[in-house]
Protein backbone atom coordinates (compact mmCIF):
# COMPACT_ATOMS: atom_id res chain seq x y z
CA UNK A 1 0.00 0.00 0.00
CA UNK A 2 1.31 3.43 -0.94
CA UNK A 3 1.40 6.37 1.40
CA UNK A 4 -1.25 8.90 0.39
CA UNK A 5 -0.65 11.55 3.01
CA UNK A 6 2.46 11.95 5.13
CA UNK A 7 2.33 14.62 7.83
CA UNK A 8 5.53 15.39 9.68
CA UNK A 9 6.14 17.73 12.59
CA UNK A 10 3.21 20.01 11.87
CA UNK A 11 3.08 23.04 14.20
CA UNK A 12 1.04 26.21 14.36
CA UNK A 13 0.81 28.94 17.00
CA UNK A 14 -1.83 31.63 17.20
CA UNK A 15 -0.22 34.25 19.44
CA UNK A 16 0.41 32.47 22.72
CA UNK A 17 -1.78 29.50 21.85
CA UNK A 18 -0.07 26.41 20.50
CA UNK A 19 -2.92 25.15 18.37
CA UNK A 20 -0.99 22.30 16.80
CA UNK A 21 2.34 21.03 18.11
CA UNK A 22 4.63 18.69 16.27
CA UNK A 23 1.88 16.45 14.91
CA UNK A 24 2.90 13.60 12.61
CA UNK A 25 0.89 10.82 11.09
CA UNK A 26 0.63 8.88 7.88
CA UNK A 27 -2.42 7.86 5.89
CA UNK A 28 -2.13 4.90 3.54
CA UNK A 29 -3.84 4.91 0.20
CA UNK A 30 -7.54 3.97 0.37
CA UNK A 31 -7.42 3.95 4.16
CA UNK A 32 -9.93 5.83 6.34
CA UNK A 33 -8.24 7.59 9.23
CA UNK A 34 -10.15 9.41 11.97
CA UNK A 35 -8.76 12.43 13.73
CA UNK A 36 -10.37 12.71 17.16
CA UNK A 37 -9.92 14.67 20.33
CA UNK A 38 -11.77 16.96 22.72
CA UNK A 39 -12.91 20.41 21.61
CA UNK A 40 -9.97 22.71 20.94
CA UNK A 41 -7.59 19.79 20.43
CA UNK A 42 -6.44 21.15 17.07
CA UNK A 43 -8.33 18.91 14.69
CA UNK A 44 -9.86 21.60 12.51
CA UNK A 45 -6.64 23.63 12.64
CA UNK A 46 -4.81 20.56 11.37
CA UNK A 47 -7.27 20.40 8.48
CA UNK A 48 -6.64 24.07 7.73
CA UNK A 49 -2.90 23.44 7.75
CA UNK A 50 -3.13 20.38 5.52
CA UNK A 51 -5.40 22.06 2.95
CA UNK A 52 -3.57 25.38 2.72
CA UNK A 53 -6.06 27.60 4.55
CA UNK A 54 -3.40 28.29 7.21
CA UNK A 55 0.32 28.11 6.72
CA UNK A 56 2.06 26.00 9.37
CA UNK A 57 4.96 27.52 11.31
CA UNK A 58 6.89 24.34 10.66
CA UNK A 59 6.39 20.84 9.40
CA UNK A 60 5.62 19.20 6.11
CA UNK A 61 2.59 17.73 4.40
CA UNK A 62 3.20 15.35 1.52
CA UNK A 63 0.22 14.36 -0.61
CA UNK A 64 1.24 11.49 -2.89
CA UNK A 65 4.81 12.75 -2.60
CA UNK A 66 4.03 16.42 -3.37
CA UNK A 67 4.85 19.02 -0.73
CA UNK A 68 1.64 20.90 -0.02
CA UNK A 69 2.86 23.41 2.59
CA UNK A 70 2.98 26.87 1.03
CA UNK A 71 0.34 26.11 -1.59
CA UNK A 72 -2.96 27.97 -1.76
CA UNK A 73 -6.17 26.02 -1.03
CA UNK A 74 -7.11 25.91 -4.72
CA UNK A 75 -3.70 24.43 -5.60
CA UNK A 76 -4.09 21.82 -2.87
CA UNK A 77 -7.46 20.96 -4.34
CA UNK A 78 -5.98 20.73 -7.82
CA UNK A 79 -3.40 18.26 -6.46
CA UNK A 80 -6.27 15.96 -5.56
CA UNK A 81 -7.04 16.78 -1.96
CA UNK A 82 -10.56 18.06 -1.29
CA UNK A 83 -12.20 19.00 1.99
CA UNK A 84 -15.53 19.82 3.56
CA UNK A 85 -16.09 22.40 6.29
CA UNK A 86 -17.18 21.91 9.87
CA UNK A 87 -19.90 24.48 9.31
CA UNK A 88 -21.22 23.66 5.83
CA UNK A 89 -20.50 26.43 3.33
CA UNK A 90 -22.92 25.90 0.45
CA UNK A 91 -23.15 28.54 -2.25
CA UNK A 92 -26.62 29.42 -0.97
CA UNK A 93 -27.98 31.28 -3.97
CA UNK A 94 -27.02 28.52 -6.38
CA UNK A 95 -28.91 25.31 -7.02
CA UNK A 96 -27.47 22.01 -5.86
CA UNK A 97 -26.44 21.27 -9.44
CA UNK A 98 -24.70 24.62 -9.88
CA UNK A 99 -22.86 24.18 -6.57
CA UNK A 100 -21.47 20.84 -7.63
CA UNK A 101 -20.71 22.01 -11.17
CA UNK A 102 -18.51 24.70 -9.62
CA UNK A 103 -16.40 21.89 -8.21
CA UNK A 104 -16.43 19.97 -11.48
CA UNK A 105 -15.06 22.93 -13.46
CA UNK A 106 -11.67 22.31 -11.87
CA UNK A 107 -11.11 19.36 -14.22
CA UNK A 108 -13.22 20.36 -17.21
CA UNK A 109 -14.47 23.83 -18.04
CA UNK A 110 -17.12 22.77 -20.54
CA UNK A 111 -20.64 23.18 -19.23
CA UNK A 112 -21.92 19.86 -20.52
CA UNK A 113 -18.97 17.86 -19.17
CA UNK A 114 -19.13 19.60 -15.78
CA UNK A 115 -22.86 18.97 -15.63
CA UNK A 116 -22.34 15.28 -16.28
CA UNK A 117 -19.63 14.96 -13.60
CA UNK A 118 -21.74 16.97 -11.17
CA UNK A 119 -24.79 14.76 -11.71
CA UNK A 120 -22.68 11.66 -11.01
CA UNK A 121 -21.47 13.17 -7.73
CA UNK A 122 -24.99 14.28 -6.79
CA UNK A 123 -26.34 10.79 -7.46
CA UNK A 124 -23.50 9.28 -5.47
CA UNK A 125 -24.35 11.21 -2.31
CA UNK A 126 -28.09 10.67 -2.80
CA UNK A 127 -29.21 14.20 -3.65
CA UNK A 128 -30.50 13.33 -7.11
CA UNK A 129 -34.05 14.45 -6.40
CA UNK A 130 -32.92 17.88 -5.21
CA UNK A 131 -30.71 18.87 -8.11
CA UNK A 132 -32.65 22.08 -8.77
CA UNK A 133 -33.16 23.08 -5.13
CA UNK A 134 -31.38 26.27 -4.03
CA UNK A 135 -28.64 25.20 -1.64
CA UNK A 136 -29.85 27.53 1.09
CA UNK A 137 -33.11 25.57 1.32
CA UNK A 138 -31.43 22.24 2.11
CA UNK A 139 -31.62 20.48 5.49
CA UNK A 140 -28.45 20.02 7.54
CA UNK A 141 -27.74 16.52 6.31
CA UNK A 142 -28.43 17.50 2.73
CA UNK A 143 -26.03 20.45 3.07
CA UNK A 144 -23.39 17.98 4.24
CA UNK A 145 -24.20 15.74 1.30
CA UNK A 146 -23.87 18.73 -0.97
CA UNK A 147 -20.46 19.58 0.47
CA UNK A 148 -19.33 16.03 -0.17
CA UNK A 149 -20.70 16.05 -3.71
CA UNK A 150 -19.01 19.36 -4.45
CA UNK A 151 -15.72 18.03 -3.11
CA UNK A 152 -16.14 14.78 -5.05
CA UNK A 153 -16.76 16.69 -8.26
CA UNK A 154 -13.19 18.02 -8.08
CA UNK A 155 -12.15 14.35 -8.49
CA UNK A 156 -9.96 14.11 -5.42
CA UNK A 157 -7.81 11.16 -4.35
CA UNK A 158 -7.86 12.27 -0.73
CA UNK A 159 -11.01 13.54 0.95
CA UNK A 160 -10.93 15.38 4.28
CA UNK A 161 -14.27 15.41 6.07
CA UNK A 162 -14.62 17.86 8.96
CA UNK A 163 -17.37 16.75 11.35
CA UNK A 164 -19.84 15.77 8.69
CA UNK A 165 -22.02 14.07 11.28
CA UNK A 166 -22.33 16.90 13.79
CA UNK A 167 -25.94 17.88 14.36
CA UNK A 168 -27.40 14.81 12.68
CA UNK A 169 -29.96 12.54 14.32
CA UNK A 170 -29.16 8.83 14.82
CA UNK A 171 -30.92 7.73 11.63
CA UNK A 172 -29.07 10.38 9.65
CA UNK A 173 -25.77 9.32 11.23
CA UNK A 174 -26.38 5.82 9.90
CA UNK A 175 -26.93 7.28 6.44
CA UNK A 176 -23.78 9.37 6.72
CA UNK A 177 -21.75 6.35 7.88
CA UNK A 178 -23.01 4.38 4.92
CA UNK A 179 -22.02 7.24 2.62
CA UNK A 180 -18.48 7.46 4.03
CA UNK A 181 -18.11 3.70 3.62
CA UNK A 182 -19.31 4.00 0.05
CA UNK A 183 -16.77 6.77 -0.60
CA UNK A 184 -14.03 4.56 0.80
CA UNK A 185 -15.19 1.61 -1.28
CA UNK A 186 -14.87 3.81 -4.38
CA UNK A 187 -11.13 3.98 -3.72
CA UNK A 188 -10.80 7.30 -1.91
CA UNK A 189 -8.39 7.94 0.91
CA UNK A 190 -10.34 9.58 3.71
CA UNK A 191 -9.35 11.62 6.74
CA UNK A 192 -12.33 12.30 8.96
CA UNK A 193 -12.64 14.57 11.96
CA UNK A 194 -15.51 13.38 14.09
CA UNK A 195 -16.98 13.41 17.58
CA UNK A 196 -19.57 10.71 17.08
CA UNK A 197 -17.70 7.64 18.38
CA UNK A 198 -20.22 5.19 16.97
CA UNK A 199 -19.52 6.58 13.52
CA UNK A 200 -15.76 6.54 13.99
CA UNK A 201 -15.78 2.93 15.09
CA UNK A 202 -17.82 2.05 12.04
CA UNK A 203 -15.67 3.76 9.41
CA UNK A 204 -12.09 4.21 10.64
CA UNK A 205 -9.38 1.61 10.40
CA UNK A 206 -6.91 3.84 12.15
CA UNK A 207 -7.40 6.62 14.70
CA UNK A 208 -5.16 9.56 15.58
CA UNK A 209 -5.98 11.28 18.89
CA UNK A 210 -5.11 14.93 19.50
CA UNK A 211 -5.24 16.81 22.78
CA UNK A 212 -4.08 20.38 23.35
CA UNK A 213 -2.56 20.37 19.90
CA UNK A 214 -0.46 17.27 20.44
CA UNK A 215 -0.84 13.73 19.25
CA UNK A 216 -1.39 11.61 22.37
CA UNK A 217 -2.24 8.29 20.80
CA UNK A 218 -2.56 6.50 17.50
CA UNK A 219 -3.74 3.04 16.57
CA UNK A 220 -6.58 0.73 15.72
CA UNK A 221 -10.00 1.72 17.14
CA UNK A 222 -9.99 -1.09 19.74
CA UNK A 223 -6.64 -0.02 21.14
CA UNK A 224 -7.68 3.61 21.23
CA UNK A 225 -10.81 3.16 23.33
CA UNK A 226 -8.77 1.30 25.95
CA UNK A 227 -5.85 3.71 25.92
CA UNK A 228 -5.60 5.39 29.39
CA UNK A 229 -4.16 8.60 27.87
CA UNK A 230 -7.21 8.92 25.64
CA UNK A 231 -9.64 8.22 28.44
CA UNK A 232 -7.92 10.86 30.56
CA UNK A 233 -8.10 13.41 27.74
CA UNK A 234 -11.82 12.90 27.30
CA UNK A 235 -12.95 12.36 30.87
CA UNK A 236 -10.41 14.19 33.04
CA UNK A 237 -7.54 12.99 35.19
CA UNK A 238 -8.89 11.21 38.21
CA UNK A 239 -11.41 8.79 36.82
CA UNK A 240 -11.35 5.22 37.94
CA UNK A 241 -13.86 2.65 36.79
CA UNK A 242 -16.73 2.24 39.24
CA UNK A 243 -16.43 -0.89 41.41
CA UNK A 244 -19.48 -3.25 41.48
CA UNK A 245 -20.39 -2.30 45.04
CA UNK A 246 -20.16 1.41 44.37
CA UNK A 247 -23.77 1.92 43.41
CA UNK A 248 -24.96 3.99 46.43
CA UNK A 249 -25.99 7.22 44.74
Amino acid at each position, binding site marked *: MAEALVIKGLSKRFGGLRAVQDVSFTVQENETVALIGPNGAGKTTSFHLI*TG*FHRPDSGSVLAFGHEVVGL*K*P*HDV*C*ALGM*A*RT*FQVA*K*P*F*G*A*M*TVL*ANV*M*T*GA*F*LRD*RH*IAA*AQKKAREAIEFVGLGAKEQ*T*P*AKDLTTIDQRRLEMA*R*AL*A*TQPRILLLDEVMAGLNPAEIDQAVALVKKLSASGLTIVIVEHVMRAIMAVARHIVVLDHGQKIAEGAPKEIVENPEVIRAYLGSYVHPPAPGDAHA
Partner: protein
Amino acid sequence: MQTSGNMKWLWLAVGAVVMLALPQLVTSSFAIDIFIRILLFSFIGVAWNLMGGYAKQLSLGHAAYFGLGAYTSTIMQVNYGISPWIGMIAGGVVAMLASLPIGWLCFRLRGPYFTIATIATAQVLMLIFLKFRDFAWGAEGTTIPNLGSAPLMMQFEEKSSYYYVVLGLLVVGLWITHRIEKSWMGYYLVAIGEDEDAAEAVGVNAPKIKRDIYMISAFLTALAGTFYTQYIYFIDPATAFSFNVSIEAALVSIVGGIGTLWGPVIGTVLLETTSALLQSWLGSSVGGIQLTVYSLILMAVILWRPTGLIGFATDVYHRTLRRKPARA
Protein backbone atom coordinates in the same frame (compact mmCIF):
# COMPACT_ATOMS: atom_id res chain seq x y z
CA MET B 1 -35.79 33.80 -16.82
CA GLN B 2 -36.48 30.52 -18.52
CA THR B 3 -38.65 31.50 -21.42
CA SER B 4 -38.50 29.00 -24.24
CA GLY B 5 -35.87 29.52 -26.92
CA ASN B 6 -38.15 30.89 -29.64
CA MET B 7 -39.94 33.28 -27.32
CA LYS B 8 -36.61 34.63 -26.15
CA TRP B 9 -35.52 35.41 -29.70
CA LEU B 10 -38.87 37.00 -30.46
CA TRP B 11 -38.56 39.28 -27.46
CA LEU B 12 -35.00 40.17 -28.40
CA ALA B 13 -36.05 40.99 -31.95
CA VAL B 14 -38.95 43.15 -30.80
CA GLY B 15 -36.68 44.88 -28.30
CA ALA B 16 -34.04 45.51 -30.96
CA VAL B 17 -36.55 47.03 -33.39
CA VAL B 18 -38.01 49.28 -30.70
CA MET B 19 -34.60 50.42 -29.54
CA LEU B 20 -33.43 51.14 -33.07
CA ALA B 21 -36.62 52.97 -34.03
CA LEU B 22 -36.92 54.98 -30.82
CA PRO B 23 -34.84 58.04 -31.78
CA GLN B 24 -36.67 58.22 -35.11
CA LEU B 25 -40.09 58.19 -33.45
CA VAL B 26 -39.23 60.51 -30.58
CA THR B 27 -37.63 63.64 -31.91
CA SER B 28 -37.58 65.74 -28.76
CA SER B 29 -33.95 66.38 -27.96
CA PHE B 30 -34.80 66.40 -24.25
CA ALA B 31 -36.20 62.87 -24.53
CA ILE B 32 -33.25 61.64 -26.54
CA ASP B 33 -30.91 63.10 -23.96
CA ILE B 34 -32.72 61.10 -21.29
CA PHE B 35 -32.51 57.95 -23.41
CA ILE B 36 -28.78 58.48 -23.84
CA ARG B 37 -28.31 58.91 -20.10
CA ILE B 38 -30.33 55.76 -19.45
CA LEU B 39 -28.30 53.74 -21.92
CA LEU B 40 -25.02 55.15 -20.60
CA PHE B 41 -25.76 54.41 -16.97
CA SER B 42 -27.19 51.01 -17.87
CA PHE B 43 -23.89 50.28 -19.55
CA ILE B 44 -21.85 51.50 -16.57
CA GLY B 45 -24.11 49.45 -14.31
CA VAL B 46 -23.59 46.39 -16.49
CA ALA B 47 -19.81 46.87 -16.29
CA TRP B 48 -19.99 47.30 -12.51
CA ASN B 49 -22.36 44.36 -12.10
CA LEU B 50 -19.83 41.89 -13.53
CA MET B 51 -17.67 42.30 -10.47
CA GLY B 52 -19.96 44.00 -7.94
CA GLY B 53 -23.02 41.90 -8.73
CA TYR B 54 -21.89 38.43 -9.69
CA ALA B 55 -18.77 38.26 -7.49
CA LYS B 56 -20.27 40.61 -4.85
CA GLN B 57 -17.11 42.72 -4.67
CA LEU B 58 -18.84 46.00 -3.85
CA SER B 59 -16.70 48.64 -5.51
CA LEU B 60 -17.54 52.29 -5.03
CA GLY B 61 -14.54 53.42 -7.02
CA HIS B 62 -15.48 52.72 -10.60
CA ALA B 63 -15.19 56.44 -11.34
CA ALA B 64 -11.44 55.73 -11.41
CA TYR B 65 -11.86 53.81 -14.67
CA PHE B 66 -14.53 56.11 -16.05
CA GLY B 67 -12.09 58.99 -15.56
CA LEU B 68 -9.05 57.17 -16.89
CA GLY B 69 -10.99 56.25 -20.03
CA ALA B 70 -12.20 59.82 -20.45
CA TYR B 71 -8.76 61.37 -19.92
CA THR B 72 -6.86 58.88 -22.07
CA SER B 73 -9.00 59.46 -25.14
CA THR B 74 -9.21 63.22 -24.56
CA ILE B 75 -5.45 63.65 -24.14
CA MET B 76 -4.87 61.58 -27.26
CA GLN B 77 -7.42 63.62 -29.20
CA VAL B 78 -6.61 67.14 -28.01
CA ASN B 79 -2.83 66.79 -27.85
CA TYR B 80 -2.18 64.36 -30.70
CA GLY B 81 -5.26 64.51 -32.88
CA ILE B 82 -5.94 60.80 -32.49
CA SER B 83 -9.54 59.70 -33.02
CA PRO B 84 -11.51 58.99 -29.83
CA TRP B 85 -12.54 55.68 -31.38
CA ILE B 86 -8.93 54.60 -30.97
CA GLY B 87 -8.64 56.59 -27.74
CA MET B 88 -11.63 54.74 -26.35
CA ILE B 89 -9.89 51.37 -26.74
CA ALA B 90 -6.63 52.85 -25.47
CA GLY B 91 -8.52 54.21 -22.45
CA GLY B 92 -9.93 50.75 -21.84
CA VAL B 93 -6.44 49.28 -21.91
CA VAL B 94 -5.14 51.98 -19.54
CA ALA B 95 -8.01 51.22 -17.17
CA MET B 96 -7.28 47.49 -17.34
CA LEU B 97 -3.64 48.09 -16.51
CA ALA B 98 -4.57 50.47 -13.70
CA SER B 99 -6.94 47.88 -12.25
CA LEU B 100 -4.00 45.54 -11.64
CA PRO B 101 -2.20 47.55 -8.93
CA ILE B 102 -5.50 48.94 -7.61
CA GLY B 103 -6.92 45.43 -7.36
CA TRP B 104 -3.69 44.15 -5.86
CA LEU B 105 -4.11 46.69 -3.07
CA CYS B 106 -7.87 46.58 -2.57
CA PHE B 107 -8.46 42.83 -2.83
CA ARG B 108 -6.33 42.30 0.27
CA LEU B 109 -9.39 43.61 2.05
CA ARG B 110 -12.81 42.06 2.19
CA GLY B 111 -16.31 43.41 2.66
CA PRO B 112 -16.78 47.05 3.68
CA TYR B 113 -13.01 47.59 3.91
CA PHE B 114 -12.67 46.69 0.26
CA THR B 115 -15.43 49.15 -0.61
CA ILE B 116 -13.77 51.98 1.31
CA ALA B 117 -10.42 51.29 -0.34
CA THR B 118 -12.00 51.51 -3.80
CA ILE B 119 -13.52 54.90 -2.95
CA ALA B 120 -10.05 56.10 -2.03
CA THR B 121 -8.53 55.01 -5.34
CA ALA B 122 -10.95 57.10 -7.39
CA GLN B 123 -10.41 60.10 -5.10
CA VAL B 124 -6.63 59.78 -5.34
CA LEU B 125 -6.81 59.71 -9.13
CA MET B 126 -9.03 62.80 -9.11
CA LEU B 127 -6.47 64.62 -6.96
CA ILE B 128 -3.64 63.60 -9.27
CA PHE B 129 -5.46 65.06 -12.26
CA LEU B 130 -6.29 68.20 -10.27
CA LYS B 131 -2.70 68.83 -9.17
CA PHE B 132 -0.70 68.06 -12.28
CA ARG B 133 -1.79 70.94 -14.45
CA ASP B 134 0.73 70.55 -17.27
CA PHE B 135 -0.31 67.00 -17.77
CA ALA B 136 -4.06 67.37 -18.14
CA TRP B 137 -5.34 70.91 -17.71
CA GLY B 138 -5.77 70.74 -13.93
CA ALA B 139 -9.00 71.85 -12.30
CA GLU B 140 -10.16 73.99 -15.23
CA GLY B 141 -10.44 71.01 -17.51
CA THR B 142 -10.78 71.52 -21.21
CA THR B 143 -13.41 71.60 -23.90
CA ILE B 144 -13.24 69.19 -26.81
CA PRO B 145 -12.74 71.08 -30.10
CA ASN B 146 -16.02 70.94 -31.97
CA LEU B 147 -15.44 69.66 -35.50
CA GLY B 148 -19.09 69.72 -36.53
CA SER B 149 -20.09 66.47 -38.17
CA ALA B 150 -17.07 64.19 -37.83
CA PRO B 151 -18.14 60.58 -37.26
CA LEU B 152 -14.54 59.40 -37.45
CA MET B 153 -13.75 61.65 -34.47
CA MET B 154 -16.89 60.49 -32.63
CA GLN B 155 -18.62 63.81 -33.17
CA PHE B 156 -22.12 63.99 -34.57
CA GLU B 157 -24.59 66.74 -35.31
CA GLU B 158 -27.59 64.53 -34.64
CA LYS B 159 -28.16 63.54 -31.01
CA SER B 160 -29.60 60.28 -32.25
CA SER B 161 -26.13 59.24 -33.46
CA TYR B 162 -24.83 59.37 -29.90
CA TYR B 163 -27.83 57.30 -28.95
CA TYR B 164 -26.78 54.56 -31.37
CA VAL B 165 -23.17 54.63 -30.17
CA VAL B 166 -24.11 54.13 -26.55
CA LEU B 167 -26.75 51.58 -27.50
CA GLY B 168 -23.94 49.66 -29.21
CA LEU B 169 -21.84 49.84 -26.05
CA LEU B 170 -24.71 48.53 -23.96
CA VAL B 171 -25.28 45.63 -26.35
CA VAL B 172 -21.59 44.72 -26.12
CA GLY B 173 -21.73 44.91 -22.32
CA LEU B 174 -24.83 42.72 -22.14
CA TRP B 175 -23.38 40.23 -24.61
CA ILE B 176 -20.16 39.90 -22.59
CA THR B 177 -22.17 39.50 -19.38
CA HIS B 178 -24.34 36.86 -21.01
CA ARG B 179 -21.32 34.90 -22.23
CA ILE B 180 -19.65 35.05 -18.82
CA GLU B 181 -22.85 34.17 -16.98
CA LYS B 182 -23.30 31.01 -19.02
CA SER B 183 -19.69 29.84 -18.71
CA TRP B 184 -17.58 28.37 -15.91
CA MET B 185 -16.48 31.91 -15.14
CA GLY B 186 -20.03 32.88 -14.15
CA TYR B 187 -20.25 29.96 -11.73
CA TYR B 188 -16.86 30.88 -10.27
CA LEU B 189 -17.86 34.53 -9.81
CA VAL B 190 -21.08 33.66 -7.99
CA ALA B 191 -19.22 31.09 -5.90
CA ILE B 192 -16.68 33.71 -4.83
CA GLY B 193 -19.50 36.10 -4.02
CA GLU B 194 -21.25 33.47 -1.92
CA ASP B 195 -18.28 32.12 0.02
CA GLU B 196 -14.71 32.72 -0.99
CA ASP B 197 -13.24 30.02 1.28
CA ALA B 198 -15.61 27.39 0.00
CA ALA B 199 -14.79 28.44 -3.56
CA GLU B 200 -11.06 28.10 -2.89
CA ALA B 201 -11.69 24.69 -1.36
CA VAL B 202 -13.15 23.39 -4.62
CA GLY B 203 -10.25 24.68 -6.67
CA VAL B 204 -11.32 28.22 -7.55
CA ASN B 205 -8.31 30.52 -7.78
CA ALA B 206 -10.25 33.40 -6.23
CA PRO B 207 -7.54 36.11 -6.45
CA LYS B 208 -6.99 35.40 -10.13
CA ILE B 209 -10.70 35.31 -10.98
CA LYS B 210 -11.29 38.58 -9.11
CA ARG B 211 -8.35 40.18 -10.89
CA ASP B 212 -9.62 39.05 -14.28
CA ILE B 213 -13.19 40.23 -13.79
CA TYR B 214 -11.95 43.52 -12.36
CA MET B 215 -9.96 44.07 -15.56
CA ILE B 216 -12.97 43.38 -17.76
CA SER B 217 -15.16 45.62 -15.61
CA ALA B 218 -12.57 48.44 -15.66
CA PHE B 219 -12.17 48.18 -19.43
CA LEU B 220 -15.89 48.54 -20.06
CA THR B 221 -16.27 51.39 -17.56
CA ALA B 222 -13.50 53.30 -19.32
CA LEU B 223 -15.37 53.05 -22.64
CA ALA B 224 -18.27 54.83 -20.96
CA GLY B 225 -15.90 57.58 -19.81
CA THR B 226 -14.72 58.30 -23.34
CA PHE B 227 -18.25 58.32 -24.67
CA TYR B 228 -19.49 60.68 -21.98
CA THR B 229 -16.70 63.20 -22.58
CA GLN B 230 -17.37 63.14 -26.30
CA TYR B 231 -21.06 63.60 -25.67
CA ILE B 232 -20.73 66.65 -23.40
CA TYR B 233 -17.60 68.08 -25.16
CA PHE B 234 -15.95 68.80 -21.85
CA ILE B 235 -13.69 67.17 -19.31
CA ASP B 236 -12.43 68.11 -15.88
CA PRO B 237 -11.35 65.99 -12.90
CA ALA B 238 -14.56 66.66 -10.95
CA THR B 239 -16.84 65.21 -13.65
CA ALA B 240 -14.49 62.51 -14.91
CA PHE B 241 -13.77 61.08 -11.47
CA SER B 242 -17.12 62.05 -9.97
CA PHE B 243 -18.15 60.01 -6.95
CA ASN B 244 -21.66 60.10 -8.41
CA VAL B 245 -20.55 57.85 -11.25
CA SER B 246 -19.28 55.26 -8.75
CA ILE B 247 -22.48 55.47 -6.72
CA GLU B 248 -24.78 55.36 -9.73
CA ALA B 249 -23.00 52.30 -11.14
CA ALA B 250 -23.65 50.43 -7.93
CA LEU B 251 -27.15 51.79 -7.26
CA VAL B 252 -28.72 51.00 -10.61
CA SER B 253 -27.48 47.42 -10.24
CA ILE B 254 -28.66 47.09 -6.65
CA VAL B 255 -32.11 48.52 -7.43
CA GLY B 256 -32.50 46.42 -10.57
CA GLY B 257 -31.01 43.27 -9.12
CA ILE B 258 -27.31 42.50 -8.68
CA GLY B 259 -25.86 39.48 -10.38
CA THR B 260 -28.52 39.42 -13.07
CA LEU B 261 -28.09 40.21 -16.76
CA TRP B 262 -30.86 42.81 -17.00
CA GLY B 263 -30.77 44.13 -13.43
CA PRO B 264 -28.66 47.25 -14.13
CA VAL B 265 -30.80 48.14 -17.14
CA ILE B 266 -34.07 47.83 -15.23
CA GLY B 267 -32.62 49.78 -12.31
CA THR B 268 -31.41 52.59 -14.55
CA VAL B 269 -34.69 52.87 -16.40
CA LEU B 270 -36.53 53.27 -13.12
CA LEU B 271 -34.11 55.62 -11.39
CA GLU B 272 -33.12 57.82 -14.32
CA THR B 273 -36.61 58.17 -15.71
CA THR B 274 -38.10 59.04 -12.35
CA SER B 275 -35.39 61.51 -11.54
CA ALA B 276 -35.42 63.17 -14.98
CA LEU B 277 -39.21 63.47 -15.14
CA LEU B 278 -39.56 64.75 -11.60
CA GLN B 279 -36.84 67.29 -12.18
CA SER B 280 -38.47 68.64 -15.33
CA TRP B 281 -41.99 68.72 -13.88
CA LEU B 282 -41.35 69.82 -10.34
CA GLY B 283 -37.70 70.79 -10.28
CA SER B 284 -38.44 74.53 -10.40
CA SER B 285 -41.23 74.54 -7.80
CA VAL B 286 -40.03 71.86 -5.38
CA GLY B 287 -36.25 72.01 -5.39
CA GLY B 288 -34.44 68.70 -4.87
CA ILE B 289 -37.63 66.64 -5.30
CA GLN B 290 -35.92 64.16 -7.63
CA LEU B 291 -33.23 63.40 -5.05
CA THR B 292 -35.88 62.81 -2.40
CA VAL B 293 -37.85 60.39 -4.54
CA TYR B 294 -34.63 58.73 -5.68
CA SER B 295 -33.69 58.11 -2.05
CA LEU B 296 -37.17 56.80 -1.24
CA ILE B 297 -37.04 54.30 -4.09
CA LEU B 298 -33.65 53.18 -2.90
CA MET B 299 -34.78 52.70 0.68
CA ALA B 300 -37.88 50.83 -0.42
CA VAL B 301 -35.88 48.42 -2.54
CA ILE B 302 -33.25 47.75 0.10
CA LEU B 303 -35.88 47.27 2.82
CA TRP B 304 -38.38 45.14 0.99
CA ARG B 305 -36.68 43.71 -2.08
CA PRO B 306 -32.97 43.26 -1.45
CA THR B 307 -32.81 41.03 -4.54
CA GLY B 308 -33.83 44.02 -6.63
CA LEU B 309 -36.69 44.50 -9.05
CA ILE B 310 -35.65 41.49 -11.12
CA GLY B 311 -36.00 39.27 -8.06
CA PHE B 312 -39.38 40.83 -7.34
CA ALA B 313 -40.60 40.35 -10.90
CA THR B 314 -39.39 36.74 -10.97
CA ASP B 315 -41.17 36.01 -7.70
CA VAL B 316 -44.45 37.47 -8.92
CA TYR B 317 -44.14 35.70 -12.26
CA HIS B 318 -43.59 32.32 -10.63
CA ARG B 319 -46.24 32.83 -7.99
CA THR B 320 -48.98 33.92 -10.35
CA LEU B 321 -48.19 32.14 -13.58
CA ARG B 322 -46.00 29.16 -12.93
CA ARG B 323 -46.41 28.30 -9.26
CA LYS B 324 -42.86 27.05 -9.25
CA PRO B 325 -39.95 28.11 -7.07
CA ALA B 326 -37.87 30.91 -8.52
CA ARG B 327 -34.73 29.91 -10.32
CA ALA B 328 -31.69 30.61 -8.17
